[in-house]
């Protein structure tokens, strides 16, 4: 898999790709688990792989298809915001596209979130923009200025909640379990625990993507 910009997903992928089916079977064979516990663990493992595949697919689509469009749109608009009255109509027309693209930003995409943080405070005060200097300001129907601020604040809050209330609480366990897997250490307890965390976090990541897509 190519290098992903989304660090949590990269570390989760690293864990999943280091955890092979045959290694799980080796661990189970050496364990004293009851048959139903083995079945449950195999089921959890299969679920993890299936969710991982769909999350990776969604994120690949984001990186390859969505992100370049979002980036182009926001970067162009940032330049447009600095232009004079000759760009008035273009600035208004492109605003709807900026709202659409901003809503598609992945909350863990620092590059796009940083672009958004530069745009919303400019949009919020149209009277300060050179394009509207001395002319009539666009009305709310074509310039819903508060929406961009709300998109930014909501996404930044979601990122903070995801990082600080979920991912970073269990990250170390997943990273150290990946190290164990790479060294071929057979610690079913820590791997089982990391597997559980991985499933939960992947569930959250897929929910975040459902919100975006």
């Amino acid at each position, binding site marked *: 898999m190519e290098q992903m910009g989304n660090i949590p997903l990269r570390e989760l992928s690293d864990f999943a790709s280091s955890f092979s089916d045959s290694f799980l079977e080796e661990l189970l064979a050496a364990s004293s688990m009851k048959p139903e516990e083995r079945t449950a663990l195999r089921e959890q493992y299969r679920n993890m792989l299936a969710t991982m595949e769909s999350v990776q697919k969604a994120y690949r689509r984001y990186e390859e298809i969505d992100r370049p469009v979002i980036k182009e749109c926001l970067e162009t608009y940032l330049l447009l915001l600095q232009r004079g009255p000759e760009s008035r109509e273009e600035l208004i027309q492109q605003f709807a596209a900026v709202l659409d693209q901003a809503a598609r930003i992945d909350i863990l995409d620092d590059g796009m979130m940083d672009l958004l*943080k530069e745009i919303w*405070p400019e949009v*919020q*005060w149209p009277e*300060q923009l050179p394009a509207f200097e001395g002319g009539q300001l666009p009305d709310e129907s074509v310039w819903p200025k508060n929406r961009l601020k709300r998109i930014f*604040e909501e996404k*930044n809050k979601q990122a903070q909640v995801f990082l*600080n209330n979920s991912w970073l*609480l*269990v990250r170390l366990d997943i990273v150290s379990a990946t190290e164990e897997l790479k060294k071929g250490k057979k610690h079913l307890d820590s791997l089982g625990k990391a597997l559980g965390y991985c499933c939960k976090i992947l569930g959250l990541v897929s929910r975040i993507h459902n919100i975006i897509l």
Partner: protein
Amino acid sequence: MRQSLRAPAVWCLLFFVLLSGCASSQQYVSLAREGAAYTGVVAALVDRANAMRVESSSYILLQQRHEMTTKYKGKVLKNALLDSLKHANQSDLEAIENNRHTKDLAISLQNYFIALQELAASTAPVDISTKTSEIISKLDDAMRARNSTSLTVPQSVAPVIVTHITERALQKELIRRKQSILSALDILDGLLITISREIDGQTRNIRNARVGLLIQPAYQDTIPVSKLSLSDKELWVALRKKDLLGSTTESDDKKTVTAAKTSGRKFRELFTNMTSK
């Protein structure tokens, strides 16, 4: 004769052990001091982010009020204004509450480092675990309190049983707490990413708002300056001064965030080195 030759050698060895023990303890004092400073900066940045957010949303409320008065009248206007205020308050309070939990975590970690610094600087016999266990429990609780994934987050580690402060005892203490401390550091690093972005966005908004809402309209007002009261003139000058000097504050904020990120990185490296077995 042999006995008398050996005695000074033993004393020299003991003296050397004591000296090297002191130097090592000093390293732990420094580490703890750095940790306390870093966590303190993060906690202060949380306060700064909260203040910026409220100031920024207050300007937007004034902007909305201005627009609503041109659109609505009477009771409709009053209700619209009330809704707008309620919405802004709720949104700000949610953000402040979310930041508060991470600030609690930063403060708990800072308390741990302060305790560790005191212990490392002391030569009195003391049970380290008694001094640090309660603090680390609070740190773990602060982390678990924000757990939104219904995960079973690891319990606090068993206390470290040592009764004399030596380099080995301090290292043992840190190694046992490593998981909790690294998790907390991860969370503070995560907070720095989102909080610096928040501060930056709100600062840009405040700067535009001051000019668009206060400084420019007052200056463009056609009332002759001679008819303005002294306090109005003074207020305008103060606002303009605040706006232009505000850019210095913004630059200070950026420097603080950058310094916090660098200090966090350096501290983590030092901590990792000192806790490697």
